[in-house]
């Protein structure tokens, strides 16, 4: 019966930050940018949505998505190494399948106002206001009691009391962080003189490139960008211009009718590299 069935392995495309986080964590870094090491018959999908649709339609699928989408996805999320994928478990560090969402901002602005707004934005990220927004949009972070609220610190940023409605701040980078980024920019604009915000999210790869890298002075240049993975060695940012905004949990998913509940890191790697091919082979 069901045990005989082949495991259908689904993966995101090689430019995906989710894929990067997933394979890095399960100890299968070779697979981050290389499809050829994956199990035979793997299927590549090019979005979180594509992954959800695929696993929903395939009883014998295994895949991975961001924890944010799990609730509405109508698929089954697996425990990882016996730990349930919940926010609490992510925060207390027991759920290991995570990745960071990071920001990076430009390092030299010709326009002083823009520079000040960006500076204020970085301060805003540390406030309970920003953190609660991040949480409400699905990011995982903790609000500590010592976290200031924007009202506490806004006096330090006089730019927030000016009328900035002529200034445009460009946001971009990872698509996974897009939702959070949009909520943050909308909220902060209201708090900082109604500057105009523009979002152009094209992928984590562009975060460094368009703020401090090769395209930082082109038409595609961004003021503030996000990456859904950690920056690489080749993407070394100026001190104080980048950092983590929150954690995103990745959750391995299977079809609703699958009776598997938990999966270990080792099994997961074996499934993805093709050592385990049948559902029956999973203990």
């Amino acid at each position, binding site marked *: 019966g069901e045990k005989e069935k082949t495991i259908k392995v689904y993966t995101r495309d090689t430019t995906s930050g989710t894929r990067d986080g997933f394979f890095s964590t399960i100890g299968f870094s070779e697979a981050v940018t290389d499809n050829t090491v994956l199990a035979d018959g793997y299927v590549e999908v090019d979005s979180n949505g594509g992954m959800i649709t695929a696993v929903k339609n395939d009883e014998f699928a295994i895949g991975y998505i961001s924890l944010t989408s799990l609730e509405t996805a109508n698929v089954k999320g697996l425990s990882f190494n016996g730990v349930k994928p919940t926010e609490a478990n992510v925060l207390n560090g027991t759920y290991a399948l995570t990745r960071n969402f990071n920001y990076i901002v430009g390092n030299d602005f010709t326009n002083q106002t823009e520079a000040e707004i960006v500076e204020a934005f970085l301060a805003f990220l540390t406030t309970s206001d920003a953190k609660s927004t991040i*949480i409400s949009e699905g990011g995982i972070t903790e*609000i500590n009691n010592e976290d200031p609220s924007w009202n506490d610190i806004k006096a330090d940023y006089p730019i927030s009391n000016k009328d900035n409605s002529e200034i445009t701040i460009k946001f971009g980078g990872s698509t996974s962080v897009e939702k959070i980024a949009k909520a943050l920019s909308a909220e902060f604009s209201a708090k900082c003189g109604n500057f105009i915000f523009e979002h152009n999210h094209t992928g984590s790869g562009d975060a460094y490139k368009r703020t401090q890298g090769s395209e930082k002075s082109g038409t595609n240049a961004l003021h503030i960008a996000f990456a859904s993975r950690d920056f690489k060695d080749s993407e070394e940012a100026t001190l104080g211009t980048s950092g983590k905004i929150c954690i995103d949990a990745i959750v391995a998913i299977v079809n609703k009718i699958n009776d598997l509940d938990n999966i270990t890191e080792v099994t997961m790697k074996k499934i993805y590299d093709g050592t385990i091919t049948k559902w029956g082979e999973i203990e």
Partner: protein
Amino acid sequence: MRRIKDFILNGITYVSSGIGIFILIAILVFIFRNGFGSLSMSLLTSDYYQTTYNTNIIDSTFYKLGDFEDPKIENSFFSETWGISLKNGNNVAGEKIVEINYVAVSSPFKSMNDVATGEKREIGKGYALSKIIMTNENDDFIMALAKDGAEEVVKKLEQATIITDMIASTGGGGIRGSLLTTLYLIILTLTLALPTGICAAIYLHEFSLNNRLTRFIRIMIDMTSGIPSIIFGLAGAVIFIPFMNGVINSNGGSIASGALTLTLILLPIIIKTTEEALKVIPVNYRSASLALGASKTQTIFKVVLPNAVSGILTATLLSIGRIIGESAALIYAVGTAIKDNVAINEKSTSLAVHIWSLMSGENPNFALASAIAIIIMIIVFILSISVKLISQRLNKIKVGN
């Protein structure tokens, strides 16, 4: 023997044509079943992104809390302290939200401080609350999030005395922007493609000599119509995006670059349809006009074109259908970012690309995609019926002469 064979052969033709009908019905049933629920006027008129308000109410001396009377609305949770009732719901995009469905007359929610404008704003019925940060008498930090559900939010509201930061939003999930983009694309593309295509058709049919050059031109135009739209999209991306970036200061793909790309796609169609219409016009109209001392230009503008109107109209309608349905080319030449504030020099999605964007985005939304599909189908069917009627008229003219 022969009877049976004939019967079987006839039978399979019945079955085959049945397949066509079956497919059409299946498609209609499919998109209506999935999308009909999401179809509403507000879908057409509202923004895709919610309008978000950042409000607070800090100075507790200006309002009174507590003891509001519960209107006892079903499936709702009432906050006696703040005088609002909340329920769990879904927005037009199908996402879970916590929605206000009642605000008492003297509730503080009637006059919140809008952080952006500094003015008073009512956060009333129909608004969705995504986060509320509050403090109680002891200045303790309280946070309520929509994803916890209405009941939880109300529970936290009950403990609070001051709202320091609240994000409320209204609307959302609508396709007004994409509808508008589609309209822009249609207008822009037609203003470029129609005159160009008609001019070429006039040249080919009225002026061109039957020589090698003309035959070559015709072959080129025929070949253009055989190129798939995704190739046009690629070409649009390398030709028109940089071009438009230079000309109208756009940043990457834009409606303008999309319209230029669509123009190229449409040219062969318009040329061909217009030429068909010109062919139908009796030659003797032209001879009569020329024999009356009209110049060729006069003949074309006074006699030929007025008679080709219905053909040109057909070309227009076919083009509109094509623009509405095109996706592959636009994905490249414009992009897939859904927009509410549509501008010619910016990215945004047409209805068809909106569907693509929904299906390949973070949360695939079959219901909304199908609802848009219904709208597209209705437009396309109306267009195709109009084309049919016009071509019937055209046939009458042909028969009449």
